[in-house]
């Protein structure tokens, strides 16, 4: 029994096409299994957010504000330089794109100029002791690029520490950031993630203007500006106002660490430490401001304004607010990962709940199965065994598409699934064209072997032209499409290439292997679904 079976199967002739098909099938199975079982081992096709649920955001970066912030930093540095070296500066002010000040003692001009030369990327305009400092266009451009880079880096850091599974943070275009969070399941989680990402986390230590602070409630912004001050809201009691010097003593760029601690009432607080440069500035300032207040400002709001009792040397401080532990934690993450150089804003947001994703998978799988079943039924009924061969190629085709996508770590989206369905249609079309050609030759009276070889020869150029033109459309879609369209283009392109292999080469290999059987049986109706006159 066994022996005869063995002999039967040896009649299938191996040929290079069949060998390639078998290798491809094995390859396809190996690389597609992790995707089908969704096991953690091995590369697999990731499901798009539309299928597994999650949050997709396209964020813009307000790069102009990075420039303003840089200008402010220059002003801070100038002020500190002046105080340290006894160079008296008057009316120092930071505007949107420039710092202006007056040098009181002309003898200091030389010291000042030497210092100003160390400031990179700036243009200094000085006349009669009046200085205007602006940034060079190249420096501005560089800063804007850096603002986007830094925002990407910062957001990535924050999300990594937040502990979400597989976040994607990537640049899109010149100044846009794509953020994809598949792990988000509830609106609460989503809200927390969005707050964490968008938090500027800009820490500033600012001096309270004790000379005018008494009158802060009667003051408007304009009057405050005349003193070089600005009015900030209190974070905990919004009606409470603080008058602080517009140029901060130092900012969060000098922060080295931030972590959650607890105060004497066991409420969560954030302890931060400064680097050595920061500690020096902080020490200098607190040393000569004993008795005055220091405002700890985060994202433009005053969190506390304690009175300075003595010089604080170690370079550490505390932010206390009415935080829950989670809030304090998120804030510490934001501070640690650094401030955003420029604020971000939402350009596009798509959030899909997990139940909708599951429904979409169910619906498309059902459509896919029904469609495939219809095609198989049709092909087998119409072409007989040739239809079965085409179906085999189609199944291998699907497995290979999944395997190739898994290898490249591609994402399967809902339109992507539609793309696979279409390619399956096209693969079948390839076999229809070939089978029709074979039938034609058989009708003309060709021998089986000649009809099959001729059928493939005749169909070849048609199939290549037809598939390549569709590929052109797929490539255009990929190049100019975004998000879901890209997903569609990827599966379409992969599908076309794979289907050319399975539908043309693969089925040819199977036919060649079975050639002897087909010739021997001579039943063209069974093999190709065609009745030849005078035969059978």
């Amino acid at each position, binding site marked *: 029994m066994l022996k005869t079976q063995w002999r039967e199967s040896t009649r299938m002739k191996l040929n290079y096409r069949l060998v390639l098909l078998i290798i491809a099938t094995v390859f396809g199975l190996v690389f597609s299994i992790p995707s089908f079982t969704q096991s953690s081992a091995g590369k697999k096709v990731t499901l798009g957010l539309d299928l597994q649920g999650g949050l997709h*955001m396209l964020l*813009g970066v307000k790069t102009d504000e990075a420039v303003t912030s840089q200008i402010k930093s220059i002003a801070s540095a100038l002020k500190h330089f002046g105080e340290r070296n006894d160079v008296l500066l008057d009316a120092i002010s930071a505007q949107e794109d420039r710092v202006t000040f007056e040098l009181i003692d002309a003898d200091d001009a030389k010291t000042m100029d030497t210092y100003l030369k160390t400031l990179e990327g700036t243009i200094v305009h000085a006349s009669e002791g009046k200085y205007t400092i602006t940034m060079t266009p190249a420096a501005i451009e560089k800063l804007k690029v850096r603002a986007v880079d830094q925002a990407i880096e910062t957001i990535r850091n924050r999300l990594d520490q937040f502990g979400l599974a597989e976040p994607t943070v990537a640049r899109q275009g010149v100044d846009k950031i794509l953020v994809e969070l598949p792990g988000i399941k509830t*609106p609460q989680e989503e*809200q927390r993630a*969005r707050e964490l990402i*968008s938090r500027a986390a800009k820490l500033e230590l600012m001096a309270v203007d004790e000379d005018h602070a008494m009158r802060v409630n009667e003051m408007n912004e304009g009057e405050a500006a005349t003193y070089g001050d600005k009015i900030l809201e209190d974070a905990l009691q919004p009606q409470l106002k603080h008058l602080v010097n517009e140029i901060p003593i130092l900012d969060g760029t000098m922060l080295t660490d931030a972590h959650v601690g607890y105060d004497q009432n066991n409420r969560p607080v954030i302890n931060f430490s400064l680097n050595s440069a920061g500690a020096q500035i902080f020490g200098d300032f607190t040393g000569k401001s004993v008795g005055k207040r220091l405002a700890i400002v985060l994202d433009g709001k005053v969190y506390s304004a304690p009175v300075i009792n003595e010089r604080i040397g170690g370079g550490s401080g505390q932010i206390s607010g009415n935080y829950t532990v989670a809030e304090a934690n998120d804030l510490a993450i934001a501070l640690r990962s650094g401030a955003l150089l420029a604020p*971000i*804003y*939402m*350009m*596009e*947001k*798509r*959030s*899909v*709940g997990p*139940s*909708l994703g599951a429904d*979409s998978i169910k*619906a*498309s799988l*059902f*459509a896919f199965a*029904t*469609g*495939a079943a*219809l*095609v198989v039924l*049709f092909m087998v009924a119409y*072409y007989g065994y040739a239809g079965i061969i085409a179906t085999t190629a189609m199944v291998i085709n699907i497995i290979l598409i999944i395997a190739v996508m898994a290898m490249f770590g591609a994402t399967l989206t809902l*339109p992507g699934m*539609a793309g696979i*369905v*279409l390619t*399956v*249609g096209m693969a079948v*079309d390839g076999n*229809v064209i070939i089978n*029709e050609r074979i039938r*034609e030759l058989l009708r003309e009276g060709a021998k089986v072997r000649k009809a099959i070889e001729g059928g493939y020869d*005749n169909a070849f150029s*048609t199939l290549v*032209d*037809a598939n390549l*033109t*569709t590929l*052109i*459309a*797929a490539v*255009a*879609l990929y190049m*100019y*499409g*975004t*998000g*879901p*369209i890209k997903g569609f283009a990827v599966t*379409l392109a992969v599908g076309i290439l794979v289907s050319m292999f399975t539908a043309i080469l693969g089925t040819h290999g199977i036919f060649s292997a079975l050639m002897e059987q087909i010739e021997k049986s001579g039943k063209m109706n069974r093999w190709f*679904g*065609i009745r030849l006159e005078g035969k059978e």
Partner: protein
Amino acid sequence: MEFFRAKKAFNLMGLVKPIFTFSLIVTLISFYLIFHKGFVYGIDFAGGTVVQVKYDKPVQIDALREKLKNTPFASAGIQEFGSSSEIILRLQNTTADVTKDTAQQVSTALKGTGNFEIRRVDMVGPKVGKELQTQGIIALLVSVIGILIYVAFRFEWRYGVAAIIALVHDVVITAGMVSLFNVEFDLTVLAALLTILGFSINDTIVIFDRIRETIRDTKDASRYSLADIINESVTNTLSRTILTVATVFFVILTLFLFGGEIIHGFSFAMLIGVIFGAYSSIFVASPFLIWFGYDVAKAKAAHADKARRHAEKEKMRAQFEQGIV
């Protein structure tokens, strides 16, 4: 099983006049619809916010509208989505604030209307919408030009131009139907239009290839008119055309019926495009070959010339190799 065993070629080119007139009228109507009626753009292109809400039982849209009257969502368009227990809210406004939670706001506004779950919130800012629109148009143009170049290179310019005319015909008519039936024009519909491009050209190529082959392989081809050659070629490929269109059509029909609301627009456009893609290969692309003055005798001569040159080259190569050896 066999559907066609035509002994004689169908005189399809004889039907061109009335059928082409029909095509022309439909195309003109489609152009009118596209430019005068326009599209119902989805938020992908128009910008805006869409919120999809699922209730645990059928819900009265009027009641919801009443409920939202005194909320920020008063101007929202409310529609059933797929079933009577699922709705979508459409808002024109968008928010650039990253921390603002539309889902939360909608939840609050809908409080007391039953048990529901917010399944999807899509927000597309106006700038992004505009960009997507431009990119879509560029993608269409790049595909068309790419295809034109490829076909002109593989065949000749008349084939290329005829194929493109058929393409435009298919895409315009599909877009016209999308406009006529108020199908929301979103990214998936754009994807469908681009796929139709691919499909339509695929179909046209199959027939063009056959025309070229018929001219090449018919010994006394110059005795026949181009119309005869086309009839012969189309008849020979008719079985394939119908089979393929039927299978693809059924696959897309299942997508349309069971694939879920989200790819409805896609499958709708594809259904129309597939039919017209096959139809236009026969009744638009092929006659244009005739009207462009594609000449069988000249094509045959060109073929013969090419074959002769090829043979000469082979001969020379053979001689050359013999000389060396």
